[in-house]
């Protein structure tokens, strides 16, 4: 259930917060939140908790270290962190540098190329209707 943003938690309803909740849960058997925060280099003991609750944004310069601590794709985490700053920024970065692919996205592009015999298939509304729901969690 997505968190609701509130004055004290303006980033609660962001993809990054949802991802952190999910990933922290997945890592619980092997790593505590305190251990993750330490590995990510957060000097304030409650900083990760504040980011996870949506009280504060993930600073962009913390992305690589947190990605390593979470064993997450840094490109993916960076995009989520950038979206917390501004959704428009994500589009601007994509426009200037091209979309930074995650490892999973790279695998999807490779899969599309293989399945289509490198024919560069057009993405159609028919394909969209057929595939909607396949990728949802």
């Amino acid at each position, binding site marked *: 259930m997505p968190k609701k943003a509130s004055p004290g938690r303006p980033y609660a309803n962001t993809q990054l917060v949802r991802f952190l909740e999910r990933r922290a849960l997945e890592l619980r058997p092997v790593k505590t939140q305190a251990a993750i925060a330490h590995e990510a280099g957060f000097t304030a003991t409650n900083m990760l908790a504040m980011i996870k609750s949506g009280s504060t944004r993930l600073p962009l310069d913390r992305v690589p270290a947190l990605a390593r601590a979470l064993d997450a794709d840094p490109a993916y985490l960076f995009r989520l962190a950038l979206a917390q700053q501004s959704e428009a920024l994500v589009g601007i970065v994509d426009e200037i540098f091209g979309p930074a692919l995650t490892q999973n*996205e790279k695998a999807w592009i490779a899969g599309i190329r293989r399945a289509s015999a490198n024919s560069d298939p057009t993405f159609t509304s028919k394909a969209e209707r057929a595939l909607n729901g396949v990728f949802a969690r």
Partner: protein
Amino acid sequence: MNSSISRIPQQSGQTHLVKLTSNEVAWLDFLRRASDHTDPVVTLRRVQFLQRVLKR
């Protein structure tokens, strides 16, 4: 054909440039929207769906 250069992060932290076609950018955009930006893994079931769609 329009293309877009994308960076793929590698294990070592280096990135490699990969050219995406404009069609592939559209597929990527759909993937992100349909998955609500959760970076879905490639699974056999999903690939089989994809293959069926691409063979139509």
